[in-house]
Each structure stands twice: as C-alpha cells, then as structure tokens.
C-alpha cells in the first residue's frame, strides 16, 4: 500500500513539475521534452489505476506519435530566430480565468461523488478485462459516434493533403 502511495506521489510531482518547467523554459526543445515527461508521468498514473490500455495508448499515441511529430517540426524551425521572438501571446487574464474555472470543475466533480464507495476502488476486481471492456464499449455501444469521429479525422487528413498540394 505504502509503495502505491509513494509511486502515486512520484508520478504526480513529476507531472506537475514537468508541466511548470514546460511553460517556463525559453528553449522550445526543452519545453517539448518536459511535455513528454508530463505525458509519461500521466501514463504512469493510468497504469497505477489498472488502466493498462489507456496507459499504452497514452504512450503510443501522445508520446510515441504526436510528440515525435512536434519535435520533428520544431527541428525544422530556425531556433535562433525563434528565441528572439515573443514566446507568449500575452493572454494572462484569460488564462487565469480558465485555470480557476478548471480547478473549480475538478473540485465540483469531487464534491458530487463524495461519499461514493466506488471512488476509492481500483479496477482490478472487474470481471471483464480493461482492454476487452473498452473494445466492447467502442465497437458496440458507441459504434456510430466512433465512426463519425473517424470520418471527421479522415476529412481533416484529406483537407491537409489538398492544402499542402496547392502550394507545390
């Protein structure tokens, strides 16, 4: 039990610390690395909650896929020029309001489910395994929304190709 708690606080501190470092670094590659570290720490918390599938998807999609493309694009940018430009778009007040709203949301969610005995239970006692349960949910109960989302992504992809082609 104590090991579990140590691990949780380790991942949580890693996630928060990396997130703070991500927004404060001036070098954009360092920021990207700290974002990767935040995503990995979040994946670790997923794993602790016995959500193996989410853990793996987080790593494969966000860390292994999207962030690789981010870093790839960053490297094509001239960093010396980028460093001298304004790094932030000066929306401090909007950001502050949004942060307060998000925090309030989290606390509201916790307040709504207070006293629920399921809150402190982990998923390892479930009869169906996590991966199978997600497969069932996506491809049986939520088939239509899932297909709509995938068509939307396809449209976005084709749109990107068309826009890229026009300039050649």
């Amino acid at each position, binding site marked *: 039990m104590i090991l579990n708690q140590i691990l949780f606080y380790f991942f949580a501190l890693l996630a928060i610390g990396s997130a703070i470092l991500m927004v404060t670094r001036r070098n954009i*590659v360092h920021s990207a*690395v700290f974002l990767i570290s935040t995503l990995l720490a979040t994946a670790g918390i997923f794993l602790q909650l016995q959500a*193996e599938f989410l853990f793996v998807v987080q*790593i494969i999609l966000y860390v*292994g896929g999207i962030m*690789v493309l981010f870093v*790839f694009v960053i490297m094509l940018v001239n960093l010396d020029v980028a460093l001298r430009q304004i790094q932030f778009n000066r929306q401090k007040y909007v950001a502050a309001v949004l942060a307060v709203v998000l925090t309030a949301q989290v606390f509201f969610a916790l307040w709504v489910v207070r006293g629920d005995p399921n809150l402190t239970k982990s998923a390892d006692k479930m009869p169906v395994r996590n991966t199978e349960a997600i497969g069932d949910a996506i491809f049986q109960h939520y088939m239509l929304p899932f297909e709509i989302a995938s068509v939307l992504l396809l449209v976005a992809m084709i749109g990107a190709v068309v826009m*890229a082609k026009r300039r*050649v």
Partner: protein
Amino acid sequence: MGHLIPSSIAPYVLPVVYAVVIVAVLPLLAGYIVLLERKVMADMQARLGPMRVGPHGLLQPIADAVKLLLKEDIIPANADKLMFWMAPLVSVTMALLAYAALPIGPAFQIADLNVGLLFILGISSLGIYGIVLGGWASNSHYSLLGALRSAAQLVSYETAAGLGLVSALLLAGSLSMKEIVQAQYDQGTWFIFSVPVGFFIYMVGSIAETNRAPFDLPEAESELVAGYMTEYSGFRWSLYFLAEYANMIIVAGIATTLFLGGWLRPFARWHDHFPGTSLEFFDVIPSLVFLAAAAYCFYLAPKQPVQIQKIVMAAFGAACLLLAGAMAAALFASPAVMAGIHGAFWFMAKVVAYLYGFLWFRFTFPRYRFDQLMRLGWRFLIPLALVNVIDVGIAIILRQELGWSPFWAMLLMTLVTLGVAMWLASEGAKPATTLQPADTEI
C-alpha cells in the same frame, strides 16, 4: 524462501532478479551479435573477419567494450549539454524497458501484462527520442539531418509494421504475449504459415525501424558521416550501439512471439494430430546442438597457433558441453522446469535465426535512396498491410461463419493479398506523372 523474505516484497523478488539478469547479460549478447555480424559479413565477402583477439575472434566483443570505455568522451563546444548527456540514456533505457514484457520461454518473463505487445511496441518506439534529441543537441548539420531522417522513417514504417502485427493478432485474439503463443499452440500452427504476408511486412518494417541496412539512411556514411551519432564518442556512442542491438533483439522477439511460435518447439502438437506417433526426438535437439558446438570447439582447439588460444578454445568447448549437459538434465527434471529451459532455448534459437535474416538482408541489398524509401513505405507496404488485415478478417469469417477449413480460407485470402501486392508493385513501377510533394528530399 518464504521465511527469508517478508511477504510484502516477495512478489517483486523474482521479477527483479530477471531484470538484473537481462540488464547484465544484454550488453554481452549485443557484443556477440556484433561479432556474429562481422563474421557473417566476412564469410559472405570471402574474408576471415576478426581472428586476433581470442581464437577466431571469440574475445573480440570484450576487447571492443574495454576500448570503448577507455576512449575520450568529447562534448562539442556548442552542444546542448543536458540534452547531449540525456539522449543516449533515453535510447538505452527505452530499449531495456521493453524487455519487461518479453517472454523468453514460458518461465522467464518479468511481467505478463495483458497489453504486453502494445507495451513493447510503445516503449520501444520511444527510443526515437534518443536519436532525435541526440541529433539536435549535437548542433551539427549531419547529426540533425540524420535525426530528421530517422524520425520520418520511423513514423512511416511503424504504421506498416504495426498493421502487419495486427493480422497475426486477429488470429491470436489477445495482446498478452503468453496468450499469443498459447493461441499458436492451440491452433496447431505458427502464424507465419497462416499470414505469411503479415510476417513479410513486419520483417521489412522492423528492419526500417531499427535503422538497419538497406534502410540505414539515418546513419548513411556516404552522405551523413555517421548521422545522429556523428558527434558522439566513447561510452555515449557505445550506449547508442547497445540500444540499436537491444532493439534488434526486441523486434526479433516480437516476430518470434507473433509469427514463429514463441518458445514452442517445432511440431509441438504432433502427437495430437497423429495419435500413436511422436516426434519426441525434437526434445533432444537442444542437447545435440550444444554437443556439436562443443565437438567443433575441441576439434579446432589443437589447431590454434598460440598456446593461450588453444586453452580459450577448449574453454569455449567446455562451456558448450556444460550447456549440453544442462539441456539433457532438463529432460529428466519436472515438466515445468523442462518447458522453461527448453522454451528459452527454442526462443533464443528463433531470435538468432531472425537476426541472421537481418544480417543476410544487410549484405545482400544496396542502400535505398530516401525518396525510394518513402515510396516503398507509403505506396507499397502500408496499402498492402491494410489489404492484408482485411483479407485475414475475411478468412476468419469464412472459417467461422461458412465453416471453411482454416487451411483453404487462409490459402485463398493469402493468394488474394499476393495478387494485390503484384498490382501495387506494377503501379509503383510506372513513372510518376507529376512531381510528388512527398518525394522532396529531406
């Protein structure tokens, strides 16, 4: 053992021991794969290869390791120090972490995750950060170009390789590495015979993912010096090297588990198909292999030119003899012990066979040009992999809904896939009519 170790940490002891063994043995293994590579290359080019350090170069890996550890560690003046220091560590850590879910035989596995395959794929794909960050941190054009090529190549071929694996997963119906092997035992066939096209796609994809020739554009010495590793030297360089060979063993382990029956021996279920007959002599093969190796070592020992080399050769022979004895002794141990030890032997044998295929590829095919590499990945392998997944799905439906025999269903759909492959190849051979944006060189 229960008295010595408190029950709260008891479940962690065995995995930790396995982990330590893997981390300790892997560098040695990587060194000997390098030696194997040099010897195979020499053989294919009608040379002798390393012969000086130890008999027939058998101690060469140790000499290489000592040399690398003693070399001067150079950090370029304009490098990003932290990233430069971290990048090789990322590569090697991710490569080693992936071993956590790889079952080397039924007994030797650190953790049997129920998403084991995805875990290995995800973690080993993180090794790319070591390459990309190292190339960027070096602050050198060659390094950066190598890193960019590597990222582009990995993203392109990961998709094809992953879809190749999906075709086998459809048959296995599980993501747990152990259950995938068990499914091959239950169905009585290795999946390479059910989805040969999937195996081929994965093999090409895995060679590209590990940056091996003919897809070693990120470190193409004729264009980029040494690609992302140009500015690295000494121990850091050797970490990159270790990560590359560890990744090769990982992809070989995945291919072995998914397509080559994992730790199953050949004809593992012969007596089920043909009651009354048995091919139990396959259980003796591990011993015979090591016995033959020992005999060869003893045969060569007196022919060595120097006294010390004679002794070392004889020692290698004795080690092989010892292993042969262990394999034979396992036959008389309990079934679980026997399955564990012989499973590990067959697994390693298949991994080495797969790696031999890698080496064979490397010394057979010339290096691709970057646009050819991209065209092969996006225009041939990915469409073929998609078609293959659909065809395997159709074959499973034919089997389950229409009651076809698995053999005919798979044969028909494999032929369909091969037809599509030929059509794709002939389309690719036509000259491109317009300039393709994807072909612009990086």
